[in-house]
């Protein structure tokens, strides 16, 4: 039954429902896979020792004839940014090493309530600051497609885990592309929901007005299934949206079934189809646009002049909010403490934060402190909030012409470790394609659209207006199906088989 890991989540859940496969078998298969390949991959920071017990309980409840959620018993990987009772939650930082929260993040609690089994916590750039997992305090995650390449970031662990068949489902968080860019460079699917569509309660904050939790998987339907579970209003999060959402899984199934995009107006963002996008990525993008056209999609070009300033605005808003959100790591109530016998608590706090935070985190905290400090607020944080308005206006105009917008998810395929680590600005520029959606709060999705010249995955980004997440799942599933037809299956199955170490 070891090929249980090759099944997509929906299919596995079907076998669990029919009783052909037990949750213990499904969970064991994935734990075995993790044991076999994660030594090399390092997608997980922690593997849940209680996973099999949780699986057994689900099997017992099913045996007892209890009506269970359609995903009950299926395994899921959880990004370490999310608080989990009984499992360390470090957000990839040394300063939280070993910290076990006394409460579950809302998305985690909802997965538990639906009977999904947590396999463990996935690796990430420290406090989600990065695009490569090279900023994880616990060492980087490798890209299953090429071990010398980054898996994207900050959610490289979750993306690599699904791409390497260590889990069918995973949770990520997306502040400037941390779900979509890793999905793109690992040939998987990732969705950043509308801001407020999924509760942030229990997600360790990076930038409160940008953060959004979302699903990661190998298929559009699998992401939709998870989104249906974790989404919806949460009274613990003031910014959580109180509205009735349609079933995203239903939308994905519809989209896959029709195979047609007739009547769908698809806008190509001119500023994200320009120099700065690698030639092979651009080529795959244009081929995909033609596929969309041939499926009846009505392709129009839209312009977003503000995109030029989006990265700058983002790198002022994020550090400013982060510098304040990360102030609580002070060695008093939780986390690391560097003892300084005979010294004051001020010294202990400063020494702890010096030792506990990595270089990128310090860089952004200092930058954010600068942007908020007396005399600079208006010029920096203030202006950035105004640029945010411009970005929203550009999207309003674009969505007047198109139902969904498309662009490459990332300018390049996965780059090599160390390639950008010493050049923050180059690393930041890499996020130009994904950042605008976070500034505007709109939903975004990345699905595979083929391989670059280096044989590595390339991602297509789809964007929809606020609240129209279902539109992404419908269109995304259609395009996914059309491409899978060409490829004879989803892209994930073209990934090189990793050498399994004997256990």
């Amino acid at each position, binding site marked *: 039954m070891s090929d249980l890991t090759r099944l997509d989540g929906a299919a596995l859940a079907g076998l669990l429902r029919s009783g052909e496969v037990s949750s213990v078998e499904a969970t064991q298969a994935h734990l075995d896979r993790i044991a076999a390949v994660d030594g090399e991959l390092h997608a997980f920071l922690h593997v849940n020792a209680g996973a099999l017990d949780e699986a057994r309980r689900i099997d017992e409840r099913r045996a007892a004839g209890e009506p269970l959620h359609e995903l009950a018993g299926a395994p899921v990987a959880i990004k370490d940014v999310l608080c989990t009772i009984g499992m360390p939650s470090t957000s990839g930082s040394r300063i939280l090493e070993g910290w076990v929260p006394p409460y579950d993040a809302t998305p985690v609690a909802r997965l538990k309530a639906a009977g999904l089994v947590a396999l463990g916590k996935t690796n990430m750039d420290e406090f989600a600051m990065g695009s490569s997992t090279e900023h994880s305090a616990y060492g980087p995650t490798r890209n299953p497609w090429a071990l010398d390449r980054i898996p994207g970031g900050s959610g490289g662990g979750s993306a690599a885990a699904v791409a390497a068949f260590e889990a069918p489902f995973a949770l990520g968080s997306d502040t400037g592309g941390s779900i979509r860019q890793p999905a793109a460079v690992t040939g998987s699917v990732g969705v950043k929901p509308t801001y407020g569509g999924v509760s942030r309660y229990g997600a360790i904050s990076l930038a409160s007005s940008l953060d959004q939790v979302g699903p990661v998987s190998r298929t559009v339907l699998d992401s939709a299934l998870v989104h249906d579970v974790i989404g919806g209003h949460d009274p613990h999060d003031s910014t959580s*949206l109180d509205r009735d959402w349609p079933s995203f899984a239903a939308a994905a199934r519809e989209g896959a079934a029709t195979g047609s995009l007739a009547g769908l107006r698809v806008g190509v963002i001119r500023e994200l189809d320009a120099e700065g996008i690698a030639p092979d990525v651009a080529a795959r993008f244009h081929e995909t646009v033609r596929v969309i056209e041939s499926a009846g999609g009505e392709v129009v070009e839209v312009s977003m002049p503000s995109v030029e300033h989006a990265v700058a605005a983002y790198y002022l808003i994020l550090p400013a909010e982060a510098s304040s959100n990360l102030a609580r790591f002070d060695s008093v*109530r939780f986390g690391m403490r560097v003892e300084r016998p005979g010294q*004051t608590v001020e010294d202990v706090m400063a020494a702890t934060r*010096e030792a506990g935070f990595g270089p990128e985190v310090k860089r952004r905290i*200092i930058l954010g*402190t*600068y942007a908020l*400090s007396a005399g600079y607020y208006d010029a920096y944080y203030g202006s950035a909030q105004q640029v945010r308005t411009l970005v929203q206006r550009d999207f309003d105009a674009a969505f007047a012409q198109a139902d969904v917008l498309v662009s490459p998810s990332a300018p390049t395929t996965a780059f090599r470790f160390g390639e950008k680590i010493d050049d923050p*600005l180059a690393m930041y520029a890499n996020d130009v394609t994904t950042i605008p959606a976070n500034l505007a*709060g709109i939903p975004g999705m990345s699905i595979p659209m083929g391989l670059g010249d280096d044989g590595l995955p390339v991602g297509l980004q789809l964007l929809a207006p606020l609240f129209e997440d279902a539109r992404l799942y419908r269109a995304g599933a259609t395009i996914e199906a059309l491409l899978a037809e060409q490829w004879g299956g989803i892209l994930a199955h073209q990934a090189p088989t990793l050498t399994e170490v004997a256990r």
Partner: protein
Amino acid sequence: MSDITREQVEHLGRLARIALTDEEVASLATELSAIVDAIATISEVVGPDVPATSHPVPLANVTRPDVEGETLTLEQALSGAPDHDGERFRVSAILGEEQ
């Protein structure tokens, strides 16, 4: 335009409660100057007429009823503490006074 001095970085380090090393102060001064140069441009692209957006989805008056919810047990509360006396969190001597 924006040259960030070591003194500025040291001040920011104090505000952010991070005991930066001299090396860090030096490298941060250079990096920040470059980063700020790259992002400072935005102060020119917007006029005063453009309103600021602090939340991507505009909402207001999100409140909760004044009803007691779950609390942590004392054990849970102290579970992550580097140091405590069984009922309170312990910190070393405090120099400054409260705000």
